């Protein structure tokens, strides 16, 4: 589970890029989310913890290429995210040439209104923006399309 978004597994997030299991050890390729994300160390530790009962050495290789994108997040993951109160990424990771583009229409995870406004591009973690719903007034996190 992601330590910052405890409803999402690393599979929901699309972080697991490769798994190789042999009789003698386990090799995992894990995509880092944001370059400086402090949760990555915790995620690596929890993977080791979860695999410890198998009694095999675990080798985790960070795979920066191709770069992680929210497009790899599973549909089930997006539903879980919304149920948890975080609006899931809208659309596909855009071509980053469309820089300084207007922000997307984000649906309020609480009352499902589309009448929401961006408060801050950076929220409680690097992967989220802060929005507020204009219908129910509730502030909420939006998982950025990345």
């Amino acid at each position, binding site marked *: 589970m992601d330590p910052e978004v405890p409803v999402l597994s690393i599979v929901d997030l699309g972080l697991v890029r490769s798994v190789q299991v042999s009789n003698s050890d386990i090799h995992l390729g894990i995509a880092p989310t944001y*370059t400086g994300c402090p949760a990555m160390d915790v995620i690596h530790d929890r993977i080791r913890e979860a695999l410890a009962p198998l009694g095999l050495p675990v080798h985790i290789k960070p795979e920066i*290429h191709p*770069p992680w994108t929210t497009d790899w997040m599973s549909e089930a993951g997006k539903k879980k995210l919304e149920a948890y109160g975080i609006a899931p990424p809208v659309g596909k990771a855009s071509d*980053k040439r469309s820089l*300084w583009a207007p922000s997307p229409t984000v649906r309020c995870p609480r009352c499902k209104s589309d009448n929401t406004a961006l*408060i*801050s591009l*950076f929220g409680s973690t*690097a992967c989220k923006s*802060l929005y507020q719903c204009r219908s129910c007034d509730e502030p909420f996190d939006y998982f950025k399309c990345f």
Partner: protein
Amino acid sequence: MKWDTCDPKTAYVLHLADDALILGQRLSAWCGHGPILEQDIALTNVALDLIGLARQYYGYAAELIGDGCTENDLAFFRDSRAFTNHLLCEQPNGHWGDTLARQFFFDTFHFFQLEALQQSSDERLRHIAAKAIKETSYHAQFSAEWIIRMGDGTEESRSKITQSLRHFAPFALELFIPAQVDAAAHDLGFGPDVSVLESDWKEKIQSILTIATLSPLEWGFPKKGGKSGVHSEHHGYILAEMQSLARAYPDATW
């Protein structure tokens, strides 16, 4: 020291790393001092991305140097003259407008630099750039929005941001004047010719200034030297604060 005589590729990777680390360190100082909580968190997020990026570059440089060199050696045990970050990145934070003006110039440059680095002949640099540009496009959007907000804001915010932009303009010019470190990288195919990035950059800067209802900038006389290791006096103070712990306890671990 083994990094004083490094080859052009390692020198170039260190140059990229130094920009990210020094600016990341500068922005970190805003933690707990932002004007409101959301903006405090935003700048800290940008700082975190930059320091994460610095780690990618230093890690790569350490591999190129070999001989047991680590990213920490490169960040904490090199002296000011060995750092080749741009002067812009080391300038003091000043007030909120100063920090955002500096950030606006750098983020916009950084975006075009990373875009160009995706054509690098070096695969690792291409991969790092492809990852970092996603983060940088958010940084650039954030700083540009603040320029618009302050320029098209109150009389006071407008006057302050105008002064901040004027103050940093001569430092920004160094971004596009090749020094040995980036000229060699271009000759060898690792990095872009920075002088060709200038027109895209100026066009983007100008388009944001127009939205911000600010007049075009007079660029002034370039202030340069950082890329050659000749820094402003601020650099030594940054290193003193950033490196003192690692130098006092060289074998310490968390």
